[in-house]
């Protein structure tokens, strides 16, 4: 959908699709002894799911807190729908729904009561509260336990209750800090589905995570954090192209045919073709070339047996990137 040029870290802000809802420019957070966030620049477009990825302590949460106006900005600017979180924190916080890392609720209160409290803080009129809370709980699948005390909730249920709060708030932007952290695979899949449905409802989502494979499936674009800086930014495909040298690997299995390897290598966009086993070809290409490869095999009088595409995994990109930047790898891991 978004054919944007991959910006190098620290270069000019990327041309984000549609309207820019979050604009961050040279954002910096300095503590007495350390710099937690060091001059990062990125834009998030409306309706996008943008991932902040990186190891613990790389500055993701600090960035989020600065966007919310909960932490002072040392240098640079951040704008949320044009509002400055430092000067207009109430406006910004009205627009953003925030799910903190391991969100907490008042255990002695029921799920609905917890949302009631937040609804009053937000200033939702009394007449609408019950309706909105019920709808939000229904949406995240907690309708049946609306009147149960949160103390008995599992971690996954708490996370979903946190999402219900964002739904109830009708936030334009959802900022989710490590939403799948500590969830079992089933619960985290459900949670990711919910997050996808946010996007479908027109919400912009900014999420941070160190669990790369989970996040890869839902993010439109990602920014890889390393030691307070954005090391890489773009779509997963673009990052793959940049770091791994070729974004896509197409595997072709075919019988017969003449000089299949040569024919495949001649396709535009193919960087390299290898033949790991007789009749099996592995093409490294810039884009998804499955259709072209199939046509080429048939044209070469081969019989196509299998065709598959290996998407570049963030995990691989990440590992490879930090291997090649070994000196930059020493990231202090805060708990």
């Amino acid at each position, binding site marked *: 959908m978004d054919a944007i040029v991959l910006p190098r870290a620290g270069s000019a802000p990327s041309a984000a699709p549609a309207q820019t809802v979050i604009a961050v420019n040279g954002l910096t957070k300095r503590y007495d002894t350390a710099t937690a966030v060091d001059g990062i620049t990125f834009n998030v477009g409306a309706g996008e799911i943008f991932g902040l990825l990186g190891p613990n302590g790389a500055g993701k949460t*600090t960035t989020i*807190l600065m966007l919310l106006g909960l932490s002072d900005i040392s240098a640079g600017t951040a704008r949320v729908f044009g509002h400055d979180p430092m000067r207009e924190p*109430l406006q910004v916080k009205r627009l953003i729904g925030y799910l903190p890392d*391991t969100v*907490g609720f008042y255990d002695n209160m029921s799920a609905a009561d917890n949302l009631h409290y937040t609804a*009053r*803080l*937000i200033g939702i009129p009394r007449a609408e509260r019950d309706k909105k809370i019920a709808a939000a709980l229904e949406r995240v699948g907690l309708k049946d336990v609306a009147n149960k005390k949160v103390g008995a909730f599992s971690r996954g249920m708490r996370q979903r209750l946190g999402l219900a709060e964002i739904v109830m708030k009708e936030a334009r932007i959802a900022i989710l800090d490590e939403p799948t952290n500590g969830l079992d695979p089933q619960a985290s899949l459900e949670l990711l589905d919910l997050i996808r449905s946010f996007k479908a409802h027109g919400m912009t989502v900014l999420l941070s995570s160190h669990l790369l494979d989970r996040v890869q499936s839902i993010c439109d674009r990602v920014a890889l954090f390393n030691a307070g800086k954005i090391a890489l930014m773009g779509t997963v495909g673009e990052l793959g192209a940049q770091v791994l040298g070729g974004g896509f690997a197409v595997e072709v299995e075919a019988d017969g045919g003449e000089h299949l390897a040569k024919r495949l290598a001649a396709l535009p966009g193919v960087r390299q073709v290898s033949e790991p086993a007789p009749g099996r070809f592995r093409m490294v290409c810039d884009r998804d070339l499955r259709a072209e490869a199939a046509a080429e095999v048939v044209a070469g009088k081969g019989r196509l047996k299998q065709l598959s595409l290996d998407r570049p995994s963030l995990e691989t990109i990440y590992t490879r990137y930090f291997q090649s930047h070994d000196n930059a790898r020493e990231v202090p891991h805060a708990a």
Partner: protein
Amino acid sequence: MRREGSALRGLGVVTLKELSDHMTSARMRVLEWLVVLVALAAVYAAITQIRDVTAEDPFLFLRLFTTARDPLPSFTAFLGFLVPLMAIGLGFDAVNGEHSRRTLSRILSQPIYRDALLFGKFLAGLATLSVSLIVLWLITIGLGLIMLGVPPGAEEMARAFIFLLVTIAYAGVWLALAMLASIVFRSAATAALVTLGFWLFITLIWPALSPAIVTAFVPSNDEATLVIAAQSLARLSPSTLYGEAVMAILHPATRTLGPVYISQLQGAVMGSPLSLWSSVMVAWPQIVGLIAASILLFVGGYVAFQRQEVRA
């Protein structure tokens, strides 16, 4: 830098929520029972004592609060000792509790300022304490009416009421101190231990320690200088201030809370009561001291909270 919107937006919501938390918490119930039982015992003892030694006392009703009968201390002494315990019990986990429940960042990401959260918690705590103290005060007066059979006069009621206000101010000091600890210490247990330790030190040890410090460090042989210095030191403790203020309000004959010079007694009719206004004037520095101490402690907590990182 000027920020948009009111710093107190959401104050009412926070206050009401905290108030309902306090009113329904088991902790509060235990504290209330402790205070009520102990205070009633003191009042009962006072009443029996007063009956035994009934004299021509124009302020008989006020003796209800101040009379002690062995082995029980007086009602006011009990309050001076137990009100801090109640206040600490309400405040020691006000902020770090939100941290450990991991609710703080979620609540602060709603469109309110931190001010509202902190003010709301303090107001709710103070309101809870006030309600308990007012109830206790009414019970005591009711008990006095029934068992003494003497209706209090208007001035007695006015003095009793001022005593109630002073007690609430005293509770405010300890509540502000407990909340300060709850902001500074991330663990609720640490905050509770530190405030309780401080409370024991201030109420039990400090009054005995201050004369010793003075004799050790003040190079003077003048008796009056030493006494005044010791008293000034002792007045650093809110418990001392409270004790003195209560003394002036409930004992109308109290003419001064410091040492009395012979010259000051010239023309004075010993033992004759002061007017209500004069008594309040005698206690005024102490009352202002209590209010100032709670404001100071609260501001300290406020500044610390504003500078604090939200992340857990």
